[in-house]
């Protein structure tokens, strides 16, 4: 069993209950425990009864903003619990005109970073029975006994280099803010790949992408993939072939990443959703890194009023090719 952050949960519960019962919102998007104790899946709460299943623990990694796209079709006013990355996703959707701000109530939850179950079991070296957390330390309990590990080392890949654990947009901040963080190692793997010779890099991606099942879970989880018709399903012209081969896998992943150029908020939901662990964040981060280098520092999703870099230009922009 994973323990919930009880004190915080009570606070959240009280705040949203008041709004849901008072009619300020018709639906609350939150988390509930899934089939396993190490899963927290989205909760769609319409009434007090549903709300009792609400949870807030170290496994609430699912980005809830993305669910607004579907739910806004059926509900007039929706409340969403947003962590730092969820709030930046919300800005992303807002900027793409996919959601109406006045129909959404955002409850901000500064996030401690979510835990990676695979990493937990790997560290425990046995099947986990439960975990307990205190002051940045996680106690892993398994048949092999107890093991104490620093919480920082057990975070999901997407949380490890998180710079903005606090929501950047919200109507109500329910917990105490945690402040901005540094992410010195954010581009570490990208730089490592950049230094490889081209052929070696191709072989690397060939290996990684060969696992791709083209389930498109990365797209489904992604807050920038909000097109009503995605290029992979488009029939005329049919960009994405259905064949299972390296060439089509490359096409899909390059284009998927490129569609996020200047728009990707680096929330890492794609990589977390990937059933075969393709390091998709490296592709996204490569684009973020380059655009920052070439066209100035830009962090997507921080401010919905700032235009994404690829939608604008300056006459004296540099180029990555010879302009002579």
């Amino acid at each position, binding site marked *: 069993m994973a323990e919930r952050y009880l004190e915080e949960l009570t606070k959240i519960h009280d705040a949203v209950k008041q709004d849901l019962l008072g009619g300020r919102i018709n639906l609350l998007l939150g988390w509930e425990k899934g089939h396993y104790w190490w899963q927290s899946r989205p909760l769609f709460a319409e009434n007090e009864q549903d709300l009792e299943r609400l949870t807030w623990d170290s496994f609430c990694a699912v980005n809830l903003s993305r669910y607004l796209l579907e739910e806004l079709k059926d509900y007039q006013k929706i409340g969403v619990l947003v962590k730092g990355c969820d709030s930046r996703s919300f800005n992303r959707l807002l900027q793409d005109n996919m959601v109406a701000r006045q129909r959404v109530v955002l409850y901000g939850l500064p996030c401690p970073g979510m835990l990676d179950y695979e990493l937990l079991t790997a560290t425990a070296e046995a099947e986990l029975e439960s975990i307990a957390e205190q002051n940045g330390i996680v106690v892993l309990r398994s048949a092999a006994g107890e093991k104490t590990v620093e919480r920082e080392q057990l975070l999901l890949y997407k949380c490890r280099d998180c710079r903005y654990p606090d929501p950047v947009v919200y109507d109500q901040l329910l917990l105490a803010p945690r402040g901005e963080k540094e992410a010195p190692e954010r581009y570490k793997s990208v730089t490592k790949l950049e230094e490889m010779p081209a052929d070696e*890099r191709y072989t690397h991606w060939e290996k990684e992408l060969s696992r791709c099942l083209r389930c498109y879970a990365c797209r489904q989880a992604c807050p920038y993939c909000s097109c009503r018709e995605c290029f992979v399903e488009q029939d005329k012209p049919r960009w994405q072939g259905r064949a299972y081969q390296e060439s089509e896998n490359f096409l899909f992943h390059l284009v998927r990443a490129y569609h996020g150029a200047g728009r990707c908020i680096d929330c890492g939901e794609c990589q977390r959703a990937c059933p075969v662990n393709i390091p998709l964040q490296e592709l996204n981060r490569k684009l973020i890194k380059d655009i920052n280098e070439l066209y100035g520092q830009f962090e997507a999703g921080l401010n919905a009023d700032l235009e994404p870099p690829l939608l604008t230009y300056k006459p004296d922009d540099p180029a990555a090719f010879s302009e002579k």
Partner: protein
Amino acid sequence: MSTALNNNADGWDPLIVAFCCNWCSYAGGDLAGTSRMSYPANVKVIRVPCSGRLNPMFVLRAFQRGADGVLVAGCHPGDCHYSTGNYHSRRRLSSFKRLVEFAGFEPERFEVRWISSSEGDKFAEEMEAITGKIKALGPNRKMRDARWQNVT
């Protein structure tokens, strides 16, 4: 494009796809022709209304279907017929070029050049240069569609 997959006597001849903007580079190519300059026939020109029209998927599709190199040519910044098309494509294609290289393509495989309609000589030179570079690199097998490899 299958006919363009030309295998000549000594085995391999590069196929280079050049996307040329209608107003500058394509006209530059025209000028090269009317001025009787020659450039390698390995370059197949595809005319696009503007370099900003170029969907980066065109480039990937070209690689899938047999191109050994891809060139995008447009008006010089500031000279776009649609005022800002090439400013946008400069940003887009710069980041796209870096992404393509990150995926493992050699930097020479995908190039962008600004060629104006009065630069027939530059057009011929650039085509000559890219053909030379691709010949030196050899055939491209990266991202090639497996079903196209047998088409000769």
